[in-house]
């Protein structure tokens, strides 16, 4: 584990991108492949299934360090990271500088993973034993592995860039090989950096191409004829793979969601072998998309009952063809891919093709955009007809032209400290609106303020706290914020009876008094407005 600790230290000790890539390349070069595979597993944000409940970890460290629960909670709120707080609390006596080196893969396979089969007392004995002997920085890494997440301040893009540089491969090839699920093993890592690009894994998706938000008027994109325009569907971006007799549906988050959508999987079985579609999983019935909140029911359920399937039927709205007859089509222009897509999916109602919007000018298009909300879509996608299918968020060929969000003026009611980088600041907020003389919480939001505003609000919160509930503070209901959100749905789980979709802070309205904030009635009107 020394090598990973060295790498972590090097990544942590610089804010320079080049220095980070250099450190990563050095790690991949000097580390045996079976260990590098595990390093990569954590660097790309993958996590182990939880082996030990975090409650147990907390209890053990409190017992070992004689820390009362309230003090642990206060400390945790300041640090914001369980692995770190444990490492800092245990760092009380002279710790050993270095232990016998056990390579990372053996740490994982001989020590960490086998914890899964043990009883809590056995787990306690082993874990606290390692806590006693691990040097400080490895103690922290070890805790990170146990608690599931090892964020090191490097993006996947940087890791891919470093791997590509180490392997002498194009980044796109490495990125493709890293998609999907893989087991961190010597074989995997060797295949990952192998020069031979004939990739065997039939389930593996292509890296998604992501659109950039359109910030300028669309007329600046030039000739209308050079662009294909579609609705921006409000569902789950997905890639549907039909290869060698199997069907795989991937979400953009690289999660395999095939089993969540049995009707799509079943229909996909009749697609010709060697087909990969890019598109959107939608709640869909009678040739029309349904609101996103219906789809959410499908995602949220543990078990898909017949009733859920009937209430929230799903379809795959296709908009691109990435592979046909086993051939990678991504280099072809969109015009050609689109023509093939339409021919392929003709007469397949489970796979509607995202219709092309024919409004002939940018002006008439702007007009048509007003229909977005009533169509349950989020605006337009604008794609260059001559563009290949790229990967990542490369600006220039794919644009999303979203409709303006809903807004509400709400009052700050509770504040909670953030995590990681924002651990000692109050950065997570709960907002409320009026119901008569009462304030009802309607949304939690944390993004949208500048660092300077966060610092100012943090000071205000500390000076205007009414009550403390553990790490949460209730504050005097005085500050008004304009929130933006994408949608609203009835929600019996919330006291307010509503749930907002993607709420975020647009502006701190210091010009408004609490009386100027909105009422629940106004939000309920949005709820009942004709869809």
């Amino acid at each position, binding site marked *: 584990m020394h090598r990973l600790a060295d790498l972590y230290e090097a990544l942590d000790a610089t804010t320079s991108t080049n220095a980070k890539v250099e450190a990563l390349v050095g790690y991949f070069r000097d580390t045996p492949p079976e260990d590098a595979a595990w390093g990569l597993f954590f660097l790309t944000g993958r996590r182990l299934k939880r082996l030990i409940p975090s409650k147990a970890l907390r209890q053990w460290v409190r017992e070992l360090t004689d820390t*009362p629960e*309230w003090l642990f909670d206060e400390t945790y709120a300041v640090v914001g990271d369980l692995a770190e707080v444990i490492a800092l609390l245990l760092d009380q006596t002279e710790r050993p500088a270095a232990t016998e080196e056990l390579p990372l893969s053996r740490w994982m396979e001989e020590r960490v993973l086998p914890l899964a089969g043990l009883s809590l007392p056995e787990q306690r004995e082993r874990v606290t034993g390692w806590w006693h002997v691990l040097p400080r920085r490895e103690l922290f890494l070890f805790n990170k592995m146990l608690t599931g997440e090892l964020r090191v301040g490097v993006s996947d893009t940087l890791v891919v860039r470093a791997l590509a540089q180490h392997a002498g491969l194009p980044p796109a090839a490495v990125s493709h090989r890293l998609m999907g699920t893989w087991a961190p093993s010597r074989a995997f890592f060797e295949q990952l950096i192998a020069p031979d690009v004939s990739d065997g894994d039939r389930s593996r998706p292509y890296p998604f191409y992501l659109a950039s938000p359109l910030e300028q008027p669309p007329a600046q994109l030039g000739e209308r004829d050079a662009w294909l325009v579609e609705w921006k569907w409000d569902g789950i971006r997905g890639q549907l793979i039909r290869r060698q007799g199997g069907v795989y549906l991937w979400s953009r988050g690289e999660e395999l969601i095939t089993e969540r959508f049995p009707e799509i999987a079943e229909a996909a079985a009749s697609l010709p072998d060697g087909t990969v579609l890019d598109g959107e999983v939608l709640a869909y019935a009678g040739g029309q998309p349904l609101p996103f909140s219906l789809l959410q029911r499908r995602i949220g359920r543990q078990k898909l009952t017949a009733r859920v399937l009937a209430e929230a039927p799903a379809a795959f709205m296709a908009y691109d063809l990435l592979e046909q007859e086993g051939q990678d089509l991504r280099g072809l222009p969109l015009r050609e891919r689109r023509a093939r897509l339409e021919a392929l999916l003709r007469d397949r109602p489970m796979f509607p093709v995202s219709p092309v919007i024919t409004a002939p000018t940018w002006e008439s298009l702007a007009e048509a955009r007003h229909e977005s909300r009533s169509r349950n879509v989020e605006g337009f996608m604008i794609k260059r007809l001559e563009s290949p299918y790229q990967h990542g968020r490369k600006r220039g060929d794919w644009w999303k032209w979203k409709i303006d969000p809903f807004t509400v003026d709400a009052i700050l009611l509770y504040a909670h400290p953030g995590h990681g980088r*924002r651990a000692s600041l109050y950065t997570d907020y709960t907002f409320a609106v009026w119901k008569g003389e009462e304030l009802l919480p309607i949304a939690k939001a944390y993004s949208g303020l500048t660092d300077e505003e966060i610092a100012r609000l943090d000071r205000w919160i500390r000076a205007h706290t009414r009550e403390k509930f553990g790490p949460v503070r209730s504050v005097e209901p005085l500050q008004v914020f304009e929130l933006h959100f994408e949608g609203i749905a009835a929600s019996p789980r919330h006291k307010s009876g509503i749930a907002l979709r993607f709420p975020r802070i647009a502006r701190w309205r210091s010009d408004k008094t609490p009386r100027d904030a909105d009422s629940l009635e106004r939000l309920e009107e949005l709820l009942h407005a004709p869809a």
Partner: protein
Amino acid sequence: MNVSPVLDRQPLVTVTSDGLYCPPGDFHIDPWRPVARALITHAHGDHARWGSQRYLGTSPSVGLLRKRLGAEANISTLGYGERLKLGDVTVSFHPAGHVLGSAQIRIEHRGEVWVVSGDYKRDPDPTCLPFEPVRCDTFITEATFALPIYRWDDTRLVAQEVLRWWDGNREAGRASVLFCYALGKAQRLLAELARLTDREVLVHGATHALVECYREAGVRMLPTRPVSEMEKGTSYAGALVLAPPSAAGSTWMRRFGEHETGFASGWMRVRGNRRRRGYDRGFVLSDHADWPGLLRTAKETGASRILVTHGSSDTLARYLRENLGLDAAPLSTPFEGETED
């Protein structure tokens, strides 16, 4: 919850709108508003404020107090341990180990003894005398780092770490800009590094003036040169520069070309604090007591009552009460301790 000390007898120190006040001695300690007589624990800006009629501080702090309070300020001094009668009480200053000339203030009144700690630390520091535990009935302690995660490493190890960082940057042809308080931390670093190297260090103007004060007081440190004396166009590759945290992100930084930044502070113990500020490196070094230091000191004073000021005062008071069985309560003051910026 702010509890003022309620005793059978009049408290020797209370909090007024002007600051900590001793009624039977008729003086304030580190007042935050101008008063008639101010006793000053040390020369940091939140403790030594301008505008009072008469000041009393320790002899070794007089140079720093002059800088802070102005040439006209009426400052008298007392050596450590020297006693002085003020009104009905006897006062004396005792080393606090915080910065040059820093003191705890002992107040004795008809057999009862109170001690106001000011800011203090228990770790060795070549720039000032070590903290001296003083037996007392009531101890007013600071609580800047009163959480069990705050524990300081041996300062010599931290100095070695700084030197390794500087050497690494030198090899790479980069400057190393280390942010640290201009008073106390900078001089402590220069003194600790003097055990390891003899290279010259560049300093920000604000730091420079205070380094000179320390030199006049006989503290041995690395040779320094103010950045302002460097010619335009000088290369800073390989240099170590000490600057106050307020210089971070300012136009003053532009001259250094390729550089890495570091911050020396107790807050750097928590990773998120460093990342939030975007420093490349954090060095855990504080002039305040860490958690074990605070607990140990509370015990060593033998005080039957502990009052806790600035920082995590609620936390420390509760722990002392519930876990060490001491009579402890928070005392609200606007002292800042080690600020995060």
